[in-house]
C-alpha cells in the first residue's frame, strides 16, 4: 500500500515535521538530538508490509506492541531502558509534539501547553475543549493555592467560562473561591504543596481523554496480561488452586492432581459407624458423630495433620448430625429421635440440652446470628428455640423420618426443610413466601452451598441433583455413579469457588464430580465400609474428609508424587501441559 495507517501514531518517521523538530528538540527528553533526527529518517518505512505484524496469529501490530512495552518500562521507573528502546526501535512512545505537551503540563506552562494542545493530531473539538478545561482548572487551583485570588477569578471569567462546557463544574469552581472546605471537597486542598503530584494526576486525566494512539493509557500492558490470566483461570476445568499459583511462564491449567485423591490420614476415635462429619466454617476444626453416641472435635493443624481435641459423650442414642455455630465457638449435636446438645468447642463441656418431653428431635440447625436454633421434631414440627431452651415458635412442616434435614440461609431469611417425601420447602417466614423443590424420587438429605446459591439434593435412586435456589428453584445438574440403596448417604460442595461436588457411597468409595460439567472426576477407594458423609475443608481446597461404617474417618489430600512429576514437565493424568496456549 505504501500509505501510512490511520491506526498508527501521529509520529511515523515520514511525518516528523522538520520545522517543529528543530525547535522542539531543545525540549526533547532525549540527550542525543542528532540521532533522533537522523535515526528515524534513516530507517525503512514501517508501511513496508510484513514487518508491521508480529506474533504467530498475525494480529499484533508491531508499533503498538513496542509502544506499550515502552510505556510499561517508563511506568516501572526504567527511564533509561525506555529511552533506549525508543531509540533502538525507532518507534517513539509519543510524538515530539505530545512529548512537548507533557513536559509543559508537568512544568506548569499552561498557556504554552494550550497552544501545543492544538497542534496534536487526532483531537476533535470536544476533546480539545475538555482538555483545555482540565488544564485551565489546574491553573485555577494553583492560583488559588498561591492566594492569587483575583487572578484566579479573572482567569475563570475570561478563559474557563467561555469554553461553554461543564457548567456545573464552573459553579463548583466559583464556590472554591471563598470556601476552602469546597476546595478540599474537590480534592485540591493541598495544590500548593503537592503540585508535582496533582500535575501528574492531570496528565493521567488528559491521557484518558485522548485517543489511545496519541497517549497510551496507563498500565495497558498489565491490563492485557491480567486479562489473559483471567481467561486461563476461567478455562481451567479442574481449577482448584490459589491465585498465587498463577504464573506468566506457562498457561495455567490445573490437572486432576489439584483435586484430593490420596488418603493422607486415617482418624480412629469412634467405636462404631461414623455417620456424620463436618469441617468448621473457618476450616480449623472437624466434628464427627457416630452411632456409638459420641461426638469428636478434631483440630486441623497448620501442616494439615489432624488430631483429636475433645471426645464429647452424653448422648444415649446414635448421633445423626452436628452443626457448627457460624462463629465456630459452639457445636450442636442431635441424637437420633432424642435430644439436641449444645457444646462449647474450646472446653468441650455441654452447655445445654434441648428436648421436648415425650418427643424426639431429628435434626438441628443454627440461625446465622448464633442466638437461635431450629430443630426438627418427631411430631413433624419444626421448633425454634433460643439459647436458654425457651421455645419461641413451632410450626408444622416436616415429614417424620429418621432424619429430616433443615437449614437456614446466611441472611436469616429462608428456612429450608423437607416438607414431603419428594419435596423441599424454602420458606421466607417474614414475607410468607414459599418456594418448592419438587422431585420425582424420594429425597434423603440435602446440603446448602456456601453462598446459599445452590442446594445439593440426594435422592433414593442414587442420583444427586443440583438446584439453584436464587429466585425460583431450578434444576441445574445431576450427578450419578455412586451407590446408595439402603442407607442415608450425604454429599457436599467443595474446592475453589465450590466448583466440585463430593459424595459418600455404599461401595466404600468417595466420589467427586465437576459441579458445572457434571462429569465424575474421581472415585476414591480406601474405606472398608460404606461412606456415609463427606466434608470439604472450606479454607483448604485440597482437604476432604469422609466418614464411614468402618468406624474411621479418612482425610484425603493431593497426591504429592504426581505433583512433583508435574513440575518436571511430565504428563499428568492425561492432561498435557503446554506453554503456548493449546489445551488438550
Amino acid at each position, binding site marked *: 500500500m505504501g500509505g501510512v495507517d490511520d491506526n498508527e501514531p501521529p509520529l511515523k518517521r515520514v511525518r516528523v515535521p522538520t520545522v517543529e523538530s528543530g525547535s522542539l528538540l531543545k525540549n526533547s527528553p532525549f540527550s542525543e538530538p542528532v540521532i533522533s533526527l537522523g535515526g528515524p529518517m534513516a530507517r525503512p518505512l514501517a508501511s513496508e508490509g510484513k514487518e508491521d505484524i508480529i506474533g504467530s496469529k498475525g494480529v499484533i501490530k508491531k508499533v503498538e506492541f513496542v509502544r506499550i512495552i515502552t510505556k510499561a518500562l517508563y511506568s516501572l521507573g526504567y527511564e533509561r531502558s525506555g529511552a533506549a528502546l525508543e531509540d533502538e526501535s525507532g518507534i517513539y512512545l509519543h510524538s515530539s509534539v505530545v512529548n512537548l505537551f507533557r513536559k509543559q503540563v508537568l512544568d506548569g506552562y499552561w498557556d504554552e501547553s494550550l497552544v501545543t494542545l492544538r497542534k496534536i493530531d487526532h483531537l476533535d473539538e470536544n476533546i480539545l475543549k475538555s482538555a483545555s478545561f482540565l488544564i485551565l482548572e489546574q491553573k485555577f487551583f494553583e492560583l488559588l493555592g498561591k492566594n492569587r*485570588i*483575583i487572578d484566579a*477569578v*479573572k482567569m*475563570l*471569567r*475570561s478563559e*474557563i*467560562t*467561555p469554553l461553554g462546557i461543564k*457548567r456545573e463544574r*464552573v*459553579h*463548583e*469552581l*466559583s*464556590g472554591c*473561591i*471563598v*470556601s476552602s472546605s*469546597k476546595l478540599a471537597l474537590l480534592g485540591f486542598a493541598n495544590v500548593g504543596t503537592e503540585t508535582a503530584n496533582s500535575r501528574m494526576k492531570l496528565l493521567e486525566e488528559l491521557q484518558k481523554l485522548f485517543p489511545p494512539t496519541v497517549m497510551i493509557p496507563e498500565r495497558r500492558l498489565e491490563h492485557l496480561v491480567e486479562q489473559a490470566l483471567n481467561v486461563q483461570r476461567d478455562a481451567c476445568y479442574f481449577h482448584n488452586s490459589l491465585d498465587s499459583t498463577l504464573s506468566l511462564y506457562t498457561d495455567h491449567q490445573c490437572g486432576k492432581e489439584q483435586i484430593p485423591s490420596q488418603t493422607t490420614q486415617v482418624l480412629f476415635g469412634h467405636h462404631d459407624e461414623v455417620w456424620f462429619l463436618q469441617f468448621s466454617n473457618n476450616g480449623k476444626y472437624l466434628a464427627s458423630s457416630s452411632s456409638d453416641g459420641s461426638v469428636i472435635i478434631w483440630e486441623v493443624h497448620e501442616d494439615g495433620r489432624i488430631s483429636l481435641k475433645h471426645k464429647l459423650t452424653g448422648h444415649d442414642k446414635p448421633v445423626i448430625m452436628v452443626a457448627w455455630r457460624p462463629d465456630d465457638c459452639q457445636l450442636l449435636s442431635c441424637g437420633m429421635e432424642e435430644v439436641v446438645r449444645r457444646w462449647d468447642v474450646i472446653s468441650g463441656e455441654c452447655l445445654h440440652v434441648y428436648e421436648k418431653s415425650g418427643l424426639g428431635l431429628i435434626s438441628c440447625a443454627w440461625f446465622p446470628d448464633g442466638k437461635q436454633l431450629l430443630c426438627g421434631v418427631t411430631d413433624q414440627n419444626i421448633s425454634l428455640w433460643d439459647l436458654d431452651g425457651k421455645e419461641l415458635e413451632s410450626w408444622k412442616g416436616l415429614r417424620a423420618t429418621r432424619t429430616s434435614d433443615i437449614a437456614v440461609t446466611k441472611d436469616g431469611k429462608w428456612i429450608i426443610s423437607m416438607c414431603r417425601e419428594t419435596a423441599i420447602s424454602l420458606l421466607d417466614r417474614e414475607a410468607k413466601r414459599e418456594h418448592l423443590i419438587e422431585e420425582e424420587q424420594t429425597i434423603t438429605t440435602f446440603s446448602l452451598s456456601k453462598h446459599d446459591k445452590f442446594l445439593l439434593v440426594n435422592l433414593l435412586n442414587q442420583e444427586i441433583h443440583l438446584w439453584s435456589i436464587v429466585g425460583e428453584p431450578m434444576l441445574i445438574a445431576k450427578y450419578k455413579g455412586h451407590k446408595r440403596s439402603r442407607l442415608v448417604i450425604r454429599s457436599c460442595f467443595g474446592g475453589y469457588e465450590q466448583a466440585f461436588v463430593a459424595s459418600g457411597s455404599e461401595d466404600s468409595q468417595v466420589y467427586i464430580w465437576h459441579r458445572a460439567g457434571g462429569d465424575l472426576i474421581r472415585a476414591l477407594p480406601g474405606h472398608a465400609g460404606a461412606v456415609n458423609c463427606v466434608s470439604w475443608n472450606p479454607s483448604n481446597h485440597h482437604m476432604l474428609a469422609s466418614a464411614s461404617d468402618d468406624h474411621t474417618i479418612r482425610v484425603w489430600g493431593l497426591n504429592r508424587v504426581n505433583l512433583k512429576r508435574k513440575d518436571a514437565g511430565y504428563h499428568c493424568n492425561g492432561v498435557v501441559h503446554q506453554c503456548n496456549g493449546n489445551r488438550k
Partner: protein
Amino acid sequence: MMDLDPRHYEHVTINDGDIRNIVQSYLVHNCFNETAESFLACTGMKQPVDYLADMDKRKSIFRFALEGNALKAIELTEQLAPNLLEDNKDLHFDLLSLHFVNLICSRKCTEALEFAQTKLTPFGKVHKYVEKLEDFMALLAYEEPEKSPMFHLLSPDHRQNVADCLNRAILAHANLPCYSSMERLIQQATVVRQCLHQELGKDGPPPFSLKGFLKN
C-alpha cells in the same frame, strides 16, 4: 367566566368601618403615607401618633432595597429596628447579597470579591447558606452575568422579593401585621374556592379568579 350569582351577596351585610380598616391597612403596609394621612382625615379614624413617622422611615428603607442600595437599607434598618437583622439571618444574607449583585452589575468585580470574602463567607459556616453562597459566587465566573444560569439573582423580581421580606420583618418587629388585610382576604377567597372545587368537582364553584370577579 362563570361565578356565583351576585344576588347571593345581597344577603351579607358589611360594616363600613371594617372596609375602612381594610383600605387603611393596605395603605400602611405599602407606605403610602400621604394618602394614608388624608384618608384618616377624611374618615375621622383614629391612629397612634408615631405611626406615621415610622411609616416614613419604613418607606425609605423599602425604596432603597428596591433600588438595590442594600447598604443604605441595612443602615436605616439598624437605626429603626436594632437587632432585627441579627434575628433574621436569612434576610440579612439576602440584603448583603443584593449589594454584591449591585457590584457585579456595575462590573466592579474585585470589590465584589472582597465584599463577598468579608461579608458573605462568614455565613458559609452554616450549612444552609452554603448553596446560596455558591450560587452568588457563580456570578463571578461570568463576564456577562446576565447570561449565566444565575441570571434570576440579578432581576428586579428578586429585589422586589427581598424588599417585601424586609418590609414584613420590620412590621413584625413593630408588632404590626405582616400582611395587609386586603391581601389576606383575596388569598382566603382563593383558597376556599380551591377546596370547594377539589371536593365538589364540577358541581362546585370554579376556582377564584380576581380578574373575573372584578369584571362582574
